[in-house]
């Protein structure tokens, strides 16, 4: 009917096998990515990271998970018992279900049955992922509310407001993909990214892949930013800001119920990485032109490319966590509502205009390109136009009574201890308010 003929033909045992395989892959990938994250962050901070359990500490997260299973399962006195139990289950089930439409590879033969390496595909497959992420918010909101604790409630509210705000940015960013691919089905979006364009630059010609990350770069950037907000990861991990809210919405959770929330968070991370791979990075297709190795996009090899791309994106998540400080809540909401949403809408209109223009036979592609380019240039100029307010050099030192308390302009910074070791002797620090400080010191 619409390009999905190869789906829905599997015998029942193959459906079960595929579903079980996805489940096992997701659990293993979670265990792996927890270890991966801890190890990478550790290396970024020049320390060894987990290295006790198993080779390279690989079994660390398994040990943690098993430990959690034997911890006491607490239910707070003030909790709403049923909802408290239901919330982690909602989170987990939604996280797993979203993976049903992710394509891992092309049609292969499993025990003599020809089948695509994808559990199923729908004419509206991407909507399934959006729907599960919309339902996953319930797990967070209900978990925080039912705990009957102030920290949990505040954490869950923040989380819910954050997730729904960034869901808008994410939903808008993939409109451009649907516009270009002309389909909502994941397997067809991957197929639409097949092939590439021959480009000649400085005398050498090479093929750039038809990935939407290159073709629709603004969409990819917005998608990448918004999924970090969507999955509550650093630098947008405000719902779990441990310096403000203890544990956020799962403060009161313990034992495997806590583990389920943790599992759901990591699966969500894997899911959005897989979505980014599918929608923008060519899905399971080889990261190099097929002319280099004709067999790269056939058989089981694509699974390797797929997981390679997912792991690289996961590394991006860890990298962000290792390098960026947490946003303030108002800055975060401002970024979502005042930058990502309008920029995205504008980009959709521009893209649609270009596409409508190229459809008209009497308008040549060059004209459209030139007009579009000029329009984009004007937008960029407006965007980066320097503000009228220039930074003003402070004319006189502020002593702290009239304005901000600032150190005097002639403050001499004491030399670092390393310099001291070299020179063996150090000049005393002379600060204008030094007299007061020494007098106080003597009294104390």
């Amino acid at each position, binding site marked *: 009917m619409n390009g999905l003929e190869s789906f829905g033909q599997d015998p029942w045992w193959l459906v079960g096998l595929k579903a079980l395989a996805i489940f096992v892959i997701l659990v293993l990938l979670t265990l792996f990515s927890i270890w991966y994250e801890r190890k990478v962050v550790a290396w970024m901070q020049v320390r060894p990271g987990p290295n006790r359990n198993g080779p390279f500490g690989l079994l660390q997260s398994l040990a943690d998970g098993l430990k959690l299973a034997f911890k006491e399962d607490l239910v707070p006195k003030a909790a709403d018992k049923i909802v408290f139990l239901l919330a982690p289950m909602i989170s987990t089930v939604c996280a797993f279900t979203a993976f049903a439409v992710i394509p891992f590879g092309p049609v292969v033969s499993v025990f003599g049955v020809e089948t695509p390496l994808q559990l199923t595909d729908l*004419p509206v497959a991407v909507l399934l992922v*959006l*729907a599960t992420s919309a339902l996953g918010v319930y797990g967070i909101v209900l978990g925080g509310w039912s705990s009957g604790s102030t920290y949990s409630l505040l954490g869950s509210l923040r989380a819910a407001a954050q997730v*729904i705000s960034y869901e808008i940015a994410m939903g808008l960013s993939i409109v451009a993909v649907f516009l270009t691919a002309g389909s909502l089905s994941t397997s067809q979006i991957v197929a639409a990214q097949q092939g590439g364009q021959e480009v000649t630059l400085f005398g050498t010609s090479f093929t750039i892949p038809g990935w939407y990350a290159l073709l629709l770069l603004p969409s990819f950037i917005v998608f990448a930013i918004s999924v970090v907000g969507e999955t509550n990861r650093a630098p947008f991990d405000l719902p779990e800001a441990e310096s403000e809210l203890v544990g956020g919405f799962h403060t009161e959770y313990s034992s495997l119920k806590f583990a389920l929330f943790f599992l759901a968070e990591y699966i969500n991370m894997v899911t959005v990485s897989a979505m980014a791979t599918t929608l923008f990075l060519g899905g399971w297709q080889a990261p190099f032109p097929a002319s280099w190795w004709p067999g790269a996009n056939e058989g089981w090899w694509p699974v390797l490319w797929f997981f390679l791309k997912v792991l690289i994106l996961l590394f991006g998540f860890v990298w962000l966590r290792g390098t960026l400080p947490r946003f303030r809540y108002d800055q975060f909401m401002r970024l979502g509502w005042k930058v990502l949403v309008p920029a995205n809408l504008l980009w959709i209109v521009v893209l649609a205009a270009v596409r409508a223009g190229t459809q008209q036979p009497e308008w040549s592609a060059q004209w459209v390109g030139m007009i579009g380019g000029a329009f984009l240039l004007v937008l960029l100029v407006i965007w980066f136009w320097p503000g009228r307010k220039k930074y003003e050099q402070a004319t006189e030192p502020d002593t702290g009574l009239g304005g901000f308390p600032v150190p005097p302009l002639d403050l001499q910074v004491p030399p670092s201890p390393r310099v001291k070791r070299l020179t063996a002797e150090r000049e005393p620090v002379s600060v204008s308010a030094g007299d007061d400080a020494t007098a106080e010191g003597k009294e104390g």
Partner: protein
Amino acid sequence: MNLLADALASGTVTTGEAVTFWILAPIALGGAIGMVLARSAVHSALLLACTMLSLGVLYMLQSGPFIGFVQIIVYTGAIMMLFLFVIMLVGRDSRDSLLETLRGQRLAAIGLGIGMALLLCTGLARGIGSVTAVGLDEANANGNVQGIAADLFTKYVFAFEVTSALLITAAVGAMLLAHVERRKGDRPGQKELSRLRFRKGNYPGPKAGPGVFATSDSVATPALLPDGTESERSISPVVPVRELTPAEAAPKGTDGGKRK
């Protein structure tokens, strides 16, 4: 020619479809009844979300995958989330007042409810009895989403554009109800706060951490100054100071008696 018999005879209702219907229909109905009967407002909202979800799946069953997922995303995801927010806004323990403020409200509600039920029943009876379903295959010929787009953006373009006016109304209404207008000078800025902090009579440094050098590490235990007196400033005014009994202050048995 009746719809039900027709569908059964021609075999368009598959076993899977029938099974799903008989599972989901009781869930949807139970959710709706439970929503009215539940004591807690959050439970009511959850049961309603459950009903919405079942309806969404039923739409998919009727070969309308797009509208099914939209039902889940918009109703279950967005609108029920707004309901939950509103319920939490008024507090989790607030109950409906059972006092009638409008005279005869209950009677009118019963009457209107019965009327509505009658209307629905006649509509359903007509629908099952004498209407023949046609055109499903034509409507979905180019795919469900394309079919919806072709109708929505050509035949029903006026309704579509009017929806945007509805959305404006929603946004403006929410602003009027929920927004608290603030002028620029209403809140002290960073500069004013900084000035306040360094004013005479106020100690600008950070407060001593609670429980420092004390017998307990609770925030309710004041910090001790070097001379052994309790520091007033280490305690938040909202936390009541807890007097520890000698039994509470004594070392617990958890450290195995190794330390004194």
